[in-house]
């Protein structure tokens, strides 16, 4: 007597395919949507003042360090103090409503509450000055800020992403004089710059051990 109908012979195959497809979907969803490439990238918080990097760094051609003056000397690039803004804006666009929080900060001494855009976990240590001294430019991690009306996270800022460069820094080393130059690529390098890059690369010792960053 036949208890199970014949088509049930395909049940193991169908079940296996179903599990594989379901597993595939779950894996895809996790890898694609739950990774820093999705969760971190694209973060563009609204700031108290709609400061345009595209205008200041792009069109006016101001160097990143004009405002982020500590970036070569300290671990933190630092958001500039109100004093830096007022250096120009005590004379330029003095009536602008969008600059009202800056003027208020200047008069009251209370800081403008800028929102941090690039935030790495507290258990990871990062030092701007070391990276700049090694020849890693702003654009490698921050993207073309000089084209951003609103600063947006461009890179996943994840551990895997850090290690990609720590293991293969070749493409991210540039001459020290080009460190803040967002438009510069290695194709633009002169002969002297190539020599400098080779020297920087030979000296580079990006840590790959845990305590390099988790200290």
């Amino acid at each position: 007597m036949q208890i199970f109908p014949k088509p049930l012979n395909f049940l193991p195959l169908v079940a296996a395919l179903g599990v594989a497809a379901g597993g595939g979907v779950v894996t895809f969803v996790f890898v694609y949507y739950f990774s820093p490439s999705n969760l971190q990238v694209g973060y563009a918080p609204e700031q108290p003042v709609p400061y345009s990097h595209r205008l200041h760094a792009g069109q006016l051609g101001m160097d990143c360090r004009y405002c982020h003056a500590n970036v070569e000397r300290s671990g933190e690039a630092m958001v500039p103090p109100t004093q830096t803004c007022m250096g120009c804006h005590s004379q330029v666009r003095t009536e602008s409503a969008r600059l009202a929080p800056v003027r208020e900060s200047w008069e009251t001494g209370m800081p403008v509450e800028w929102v941090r855009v690039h935030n790495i976990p507290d258990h990871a240590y990062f030092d701007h000055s070391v990276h700049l001294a090694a020849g890693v430019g702003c654009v490698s991690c921050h993207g073309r800020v000089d084209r951003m009306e609103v600063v947006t996270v461009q890179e996943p800022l994840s551990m895997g992403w850090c290690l990609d460069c720590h293991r293969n820094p070749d493409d991210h080393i540039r001459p020290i004089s080009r460190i803040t130059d967002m438009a510069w690529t290695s194709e633009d390098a002169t002969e002297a710059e190539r020599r400098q890059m080779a020297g920087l690369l030979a000296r580079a010792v990006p840590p790959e051990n845990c305590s390099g960053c988790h200290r």
Partner: protein
Amino acid sequence: MSAADTLPRPAWGAPALAVMALAMIAGCQGQTSAEPPIVPVRNMHELPRYDAQEASPYFADGRAMRPPVPHTIAREMEVDEAIDTGVDVEGDYVLSIPEAVVARAGGLEDLTRRGHERYDVYCVPCHGGLGDGNGMVPEVSGVGTIRPPTFHDDRLRHAPDGQIYATIRNGIRNMPAYAHNVPVHDRWAIVAYVRALQVNQADGRTAALEPQTGAGR
């Protein structure tokens, strides 16, 4: 009627539609959002300590970072008054860049090179690459009042080095003080480069010096 017809056929359409619907709702990777990033694993992500420039409700000004205590000296602060202010004990401007500054920079050439680099960062926006006052900011802002004077006249050619230094440090007229973002040695380095520019431009040459830096070209 065969047994096969009584069994439900596997419906591939429904899960496929579900996946597509999910993808449409979730969107593509890295879409722009003003919402703070979601951190799935939060272990030690926020430690109970302040980051640099973080807000703190403890202090009246809301800053976790504290300004220096009055009458204290930070390690990196310059203790030589003449080097720090550009003015000597008699109250006169230091006539030339102090020897100690040149020595610490490793020679006048290195100091000038450093100055070139710093000048391109902090001075070029207003003073222009040649120091003639034709910078980008006066041009774009359209405000006549902030066009800085040229370095290439007798008044500034004969100004003591200390006066140029003090101007960078304290500001003058429309120019803000740069003490907070240009450290002592870089100010002297910029003085050295301004002197080099004045020599370079003295006989009316106008060959532009290629700026070493500059974010957007």
